[in-house]
């Protein structure tokens, strides 16, 4: 038996508190954990951004799988869409992690990160897509791939049938989402949801469920590269993954009590400040 070093215990406590706060903040604002964890680890704990990205991409697997498993069991996830588009996101993730990430200096990653965080916040202020899109006709590819589907909507109390369109555009969006995932160590869930709702015009519940399901595979494809590169610090991943899971759960519970768009917008504003700080640090305005 050896006693742990006090600095080590303190550091882990700091990581837990920061990740917990990140998980709560992210789930209240409606965006995933990764996009918060990286700035938190770099800005508040002074970690090198590449290690922060490595820790984040592995934790994303844990957070997305939890929600992903519930939606897929409830048959809200469209698994054919997910499996088909996973080819594009997994390829994108490998390109982003293996080819692009090593080329870009840390401060460029920070700027890209800040911009991505700011873009992720847009849907909070402006709703994209429709809750239940009307008049969508399957395109030729969607018909060939049998991508149309149905799910039981608990709020409406009925089975909702939907058609799917815009597969080529969605495949492009998904590749891009995969690249960003691999490059920045995030799930890029917001981009995936936008691809589902804007390009394919699937109902928003299906798009959330399906992108959650795909994030695990995207993150796993990128994680393999980060593991082999030696950028994953397990003693950071463990407290981050556990605390973000708990934080996201607490955030969801809090949200149920204060289901108010204003609250979300206040939190989103706080995240926007973090996004701006990442950009400013990246371009050297802030230390």
């Amino acid at each position: 038996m050896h006693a742990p070093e006090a600095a080590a215990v303190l550091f882990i406590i700091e990581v837990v508190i920061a990740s917990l706060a990140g998980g709560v903040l992210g789930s209240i604002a409606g965006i995933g954990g990764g996009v918060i964890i990286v700035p938190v680890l770099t800005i508040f704990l002074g970690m090198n951004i590449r290690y922060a990205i490595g820790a984040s991409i592995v934790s994303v697997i844990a957070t997305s799988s939890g929600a992903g498993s519930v939606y897929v069991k409830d048959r809200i996830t469209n698994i054919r869409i997910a499996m088909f588009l996973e080819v594009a996101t997994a390829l994108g993730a490998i390109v982003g992690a293996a080819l692009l990430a090593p080329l870009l200096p840390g401060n460029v990653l920070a700027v890209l990160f800040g911009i991505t965080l700011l873009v992720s916040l847009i849907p909070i202020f402006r709703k994209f897509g429709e809750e239940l899109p009307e008049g969508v006709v399957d395109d030729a590819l969607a018909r060939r791939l049998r991508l149309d589907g149905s799910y039981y909507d608990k709020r409406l109390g009925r089975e909702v049938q939907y058609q799917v369109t815009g597969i080529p555009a969605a495949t492009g969006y998904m590749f891009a989402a995969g690249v960003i995932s691999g490059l920045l160590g995030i799930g890029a869930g917001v981009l995936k949801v936008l691809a589902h709702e804007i390009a394919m015009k699937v109902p928003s519940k299906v798009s959330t469920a399906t992108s959650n399901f795909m994030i695990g595979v995207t993150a796993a494809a990128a994680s393999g590269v980060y593991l082999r590169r030696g950028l994953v610090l397990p003693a950071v991943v463990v407290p981050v993954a556990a605390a973000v899971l708990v934080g996201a759960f607490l955030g969801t519970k809090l949200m149920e009590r204060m289901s108010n768009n204003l609250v979300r917008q206040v939190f989103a504003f706080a995240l926007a400040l973090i996004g701006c700080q990442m950009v400013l640090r990246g371009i050297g305005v802030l230390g």
Partner: protein
Amino acid sequence: MAARAPKPATFDHNGPTQRDKIAIQDASAYILRLGVVISVVVMFFGLVLALFHNGLTKHEILTHTVSTDWPKLGQSLRRFDGFAFMDLGVLLLVLTPILRVATATLLFAVEEHDRFYTVVTFLVLVMTVSSLLFIS
């Protein structure tokens, strides 16, 4: 932990003699949940072990990266090295979605007899496995 078998699909009407298909949705949900729980438990055990058995230092936290040298990992596990368990936990977590894809490939081939989606999921499987084994 009691292993819950995936619930078979009930919408299969091939007659009473044929067993129900295993639904890809149920198998996926089961693998994701089990994988995350097991890996988080193993990782957490590793962290506790590293803290109180090995005497963890901040320097180690910020420098020890996951080892991809699998034979060496086995030896370290037997020595009850906390980092070896954390490494194993991280590896199990990364393998969880990969196993979910492998299962889907198998079910599309064997249960659904759907050649197109068997190939699609197999492609995803090849990419994720090679990122873990070859690409860096």
